[in-house]
């Protein structure tokens, strides 16, 4: 399976790099980190041009983010039209808006690279919440530059150890993303318990 994936990069070149970063930013389960690591390794071996690889991966990621944001925005509009009849989705949307207003740019930036597995969902949520598109784009591009630099750079540096780097980096980014979700849910749970306790004492 991994071998087949790794063969995609030398066979199809940069096309596959752009495609994988774009699709993974739209929440499709594409192992784009592995593809970028591999591309970085092929830059080191002289099979791919470094600048072109970086630019292609970055363009794919930015396009994918924009598509995800637009999709979220349309979905959000649809939800708010529907929500006149049901209060639940309106509450969900209000929560998303609160989240985007509170975390905004920083959330978009960090979810591009540090917590990259939740990035695609951030695109949908910030789109649905009508976060300012210019702010989203600015922080999104900055974050993708970091993401692409890290993975293509790791691939370039540790190209002769591609499988080792891929498995360690993949699991570690899982720790960061799942850890962030755990922390978020934990804080939410704590505030829910507190407000319940306050109600009981009142």
């Amino acid at each position, binding site marked *: 399976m991994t071998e087949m994936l790794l063969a995609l990069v030398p066979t199809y070149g940069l096309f596959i790099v752009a495609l994988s970063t774009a699709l993974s930013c739209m929440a499709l389960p594409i192992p784009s980190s592995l593809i970028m690591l591999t591309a970085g390794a092929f830059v080191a071996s002289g*099979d791919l041009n470094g600048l072109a690889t970086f630019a292609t991966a970055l363009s794919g990621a930015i396009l994918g983010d924009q598509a995800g944001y637009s999709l979220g925005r349309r979905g959000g509009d649809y939800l708010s039209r529907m929500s006149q009849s049901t209060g639940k989705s309106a509450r969900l949307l209000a929560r998303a808006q609160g989240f985007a207003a509170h975390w905004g740019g920083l959330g978009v930036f960090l979810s591009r690279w540090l917590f990259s597995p939740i990035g695609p969902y951030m695109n949908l949520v910030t789109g649905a919440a009508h976060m300012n598109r210019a702010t989203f784009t600015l922080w999104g591009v900055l974050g993708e530059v970091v993401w692409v630099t890290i993975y293509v750079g790791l691939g370039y540096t540790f190209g*002769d150890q591609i499988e*080792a780097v891929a498995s360690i980096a993949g699991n570690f980014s899982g*720790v960061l993303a799942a850890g962030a979700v755990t922390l978020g849910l934990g804080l939410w749970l704590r505030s829910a318990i507190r407000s319940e306790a306050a109600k009981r004492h009142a």
Partner: protein
Amino acid sequence: MKRLIHIWKHHPLLSTGFALALCLTLYFGIRTVTATMYWADPAHRDQALQSWMTPGYIGHSWKVPREVMDAAIGTLPENKRPTLEVIADQQGISVADLIARIETAIFAYRDAQ
């Protein structure tokens, strides 16, 4: 324990989600540690030649000059980045045979050094 059950009864979705996310974090944590330990072992570091690799990649990975690779492989297909699979196909041999030929050349080069 009683308190945990109380919390779970009052916030079933939220506490289940929290527990799941916690398990997932631990799972990836353990996998990170085991992967790091596995790859820290030098015995696992020499990357076996595989069908997806290109001559350039093997040269880079095994630190062998391009000329040695070229001599071992022979004329390359027109393709810019031929994988071992493509090369073997074109030469009408199996990937295993091609890998054996390249390995012989690499070890001969290393012995000569």
